[in-house]
């Protein structure tokens, strides 16, 4: 809703952006300008609360993988998998190989689909069409018109086949519910495996094609490269992500590794130890909490080695990984670090916020290649080892996966009958909440100066600061084309509107 600007005897002018685009529900930005027209401060508010952590109490823990996907209908697989892994830990079961293969395959296919929708529908329009291009064309339709219908068909096919794969695993194309404590609800037949391999082979080609799109339409443009490298989109924060035993990327399982802004390891821990490393802060002006690293501490909304603010994004996952787990992704990883840091080894950290789009595309390649390895595994179609019956008394467990938008934690404590007594969730985007606030403020400060004409293009470039994170607040919608409405009003001290910019229809 439009903000009822409260009149205060303040020397500051307020610019309200309400609602902000591509958040589930409504995000809101208030920018305060000082007497010189410079940005004095900036608040990004999340006005939503549903309380999953509380209403899961009293529910049977095996129902969590069926309830939790409704945190987000866009990335339900991430919540289902984190939840199922927490259930496995609650019952102290280790999965049979086939169960593990099915889950990780399903998860990697989901990853490709999810990253593809963000790249084409949300990220690419700013670059393919231009950051300050006509907003009526700066959307997925514009991208398809510019790149050609055959590109659009490829994107639609990737989505469609991704949902077909979801239905093979879990019956439902959206909100699959097939992960259960101890494995998955149904095996994969040889015939289903063949179709899955066909889908995955297409996804590998599609991911490679997407790298080409990025190269041609973003990296070949020196202005964009300059914007990525030197624009007001840069924070030297800690990075967090899952790695395997060789410190390579893995989205489904591993240990959580955190590195400092220079790339030195701060800690590496098993999921069950997450609460020793991450704490959450509450601010009175937002329903969403602010996680930070306990070893460093909360020092406010600032970056640097002394500040516990961290990011958990595709870029962070590349920062924490010594290498990608698959060959084509590794090539892309080396090109990425070489271009952005001059060091293809990956030992010099990337901190440019907008480069997250590039990292996301590299992860698409990685997920598709990993899925191809898994779908060809001879044990995938074993008729019995898709689940195991838990026998231990349920107690407590933590499950962690890398959601597309960040490290996702589900933590349950149950009674001896497996009824949930406590639940704690740290959702992908929540990790990045402080960093997103900082990125918005930094973009606003860099783009709005004394005498700046606050055009629609300027607004869009402020939006680009959070869009890079692919945010999913409340964990919710993020992945669809186009824009939500936006109106920016500049008010004087009495709350009277003195200037207004309305974003044109898209």
């Amino acid at each position, binding site marked *: 809703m439009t903000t009822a600007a409260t009149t205060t005897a303040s020397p500051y002018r307020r610019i309200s952006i309400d609602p902000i685009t591509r958040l589930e529900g409504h995000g809101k930005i208030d920018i305060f300008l000082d007497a010189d027209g410079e940005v004095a401060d900036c608040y990004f508010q999340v006005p*939503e609360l549903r309380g999953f952590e509380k209403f899961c109490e009293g529910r049977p823990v095996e129902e969590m993988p069926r309830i939790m996907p409704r945190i987000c209908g866009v990335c339900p697989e991430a919540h289902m998998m984190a939840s199922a892994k927490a259930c496995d830990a609650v019952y102290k079961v280790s999965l049979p190989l086939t169960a593990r293969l099915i889950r990780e395959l399903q998860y990697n296919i989901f990853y490709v689909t999810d990253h593809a929708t963000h790249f084409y529908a949300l990220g690419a329009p700013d670059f393919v069409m231009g950051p300050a291009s006509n907003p009526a064309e700066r959307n997925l339709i514009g991208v398809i018109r510019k790149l050609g219908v055959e590109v659009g068909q490829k994107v639609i096919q990737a989505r469609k086949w991704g949902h077909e794969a979801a239905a093979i695993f879990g019956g439902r194309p959206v909100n699959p519910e097939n992960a259960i404590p101890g494995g998955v609800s149904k095996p994969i037949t040889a015939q289903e495996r063949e179709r899955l391999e066909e889908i995955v082979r297409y996804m590998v080609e599609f991911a490679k094609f997407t790298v080409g799109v990025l190269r041609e339409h973003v990296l070949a443009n020196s202005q964009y490269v300059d914007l990525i490298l030197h624009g007001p989109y840069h924070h030297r924060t800690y990075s967090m992500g899952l790695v395997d035993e060789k410190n390579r990327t893995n989205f489904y399982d591993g240990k959580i590794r955190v590195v400092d802004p220079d790339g030195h390891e701060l800690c590496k821990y098993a999921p069950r130890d997450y609460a020793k490393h991450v704490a959450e802060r509450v601010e009175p002006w937002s329903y969403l909490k602010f996680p930070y690293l306990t070893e460093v501490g909360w020092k406010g909304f600032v970056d640097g080695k002394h500040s516990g603010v961290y990011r958990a994004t595709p870029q962070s996952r590349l920062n924490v990984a010594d290498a990608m787990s698959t060959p084509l992704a590794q090539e892309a990883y080396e090109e990425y670090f070489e271009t952005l840091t001059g060091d293809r080894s990956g030992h010099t950290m990337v901190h440019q916020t907008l480069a997250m789009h590039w990292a996301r595309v590299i992860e698409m390649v990685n997920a598709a290649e990993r899925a191809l390895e898994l779908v060809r595994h001879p044990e995938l179609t074993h008729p019995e080892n898709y689940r195991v*019956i838990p026998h231990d008394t349920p107690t407590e467990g933590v499950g962690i996966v890398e959601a597309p938008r960040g490290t996702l934690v589900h933590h349950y404590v149950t009674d001896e009958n497996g009824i949930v007594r406590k639940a704690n969730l740290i959702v992908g985007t929540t990790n990045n909440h402080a960093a997103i606030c900082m990125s918005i403020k930094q973009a606003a400060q860099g783009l709005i100066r004394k005498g700046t004409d606050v055009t629609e293009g300027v607004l869009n470039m402020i939006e680009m600061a959070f869009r890079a994170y692919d945010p999913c607040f409340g964990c919710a919608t993020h992945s669809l084309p186009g824009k939500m409405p936006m*109106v920016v009003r500049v008010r004087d001290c009495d709350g009277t509107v003195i200037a207004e910019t309305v974003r044109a229809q898209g």
Partner: protein
Amino acid sequence: MTASVDTSDRQPGKLRIGMYWASSCGGCDISLLEIGEHLLELIEVADVVLWPCVADFKYRTVADYPDGYIDVCLFNGAIRSSEQEEIARLLRVKSRTLAAYGACAMDGGIPALANLKSPGAIYDAVYHSNPTLQNPNKTEPQEHWAAPQGDLTLPRFYPQVLRLADIVDVDYRIPGCPPVGTQVWKVLQAVVAGEVPAHNDAARAGCDNRSVCDECHREKRKTRIKEFKRPHLAVPEPNWCLLEQGFVCLGAATRSGCGALCTKAELACRGCYGSAGLADDQGTAMLSAIGSVIDATTDDRAHEIVEQIADPTGTFYRFSLASSALKAHR
């Protein structure tokens, strides 16, 4: 309910369609995209005039529309905040036909499980007692907070989750979590063809008239249950009715139309299409379904078997607590 087709007051030209989200997960918006290539057909005959995640329309623009300007508005998500109520009221005025789209708008959905807890308990868990919190000053989100430079506001968090129909009159209800794409497309085709009246007393659309059991592939053997099993502790026999095997399955109490997708994946139905009967209370319907399959000759034995169900309230009303007789905490 009106059976006849009334299109007399439809405005000339293309239909105007709106889609909105309130307290929801985004799955309903995804489900509308699930109509796939039909979306292009739809855009030929209908203009989208509100769809926050796809098109760029401001609330201000919506507020400036003449009353009844939107021909059909699909509203997803439940009502949990003052902002959501405000938008619901605005869209009722601006829409000729307002449909509750998906389980949350229709019956509260999974977020309505929060009605089993008090708002204070939710705040306590989320902001005070969870293991990762560092909140020594007991800070909580405030509707008004004075930043050094000016006042910041948040919408009010309501004491309970409400349905769209608890706030405004609803013309249709489209069930599902989320609604299945093929059903959604059938509804839209009917709308485009002018085959449905604008107002229809919250009639259900986008579903069939039977129960999920009627479209489930699994065989009923008319056997009776001696015990209930939890789904992770036993492997079901394929192709045999899950309820008859002792797994709580809401198929009998749930409206058909989804295609019984979950039971194909060896999972019991959890009732996302809402009550199968005319009454909204899905739990009582489920209780009577269970009463008919348990193998007990005495009340005590019947009681003993039913006691084995781990969480009857959270299971029988998984998606429909806001429509139940229980409604809310206290």
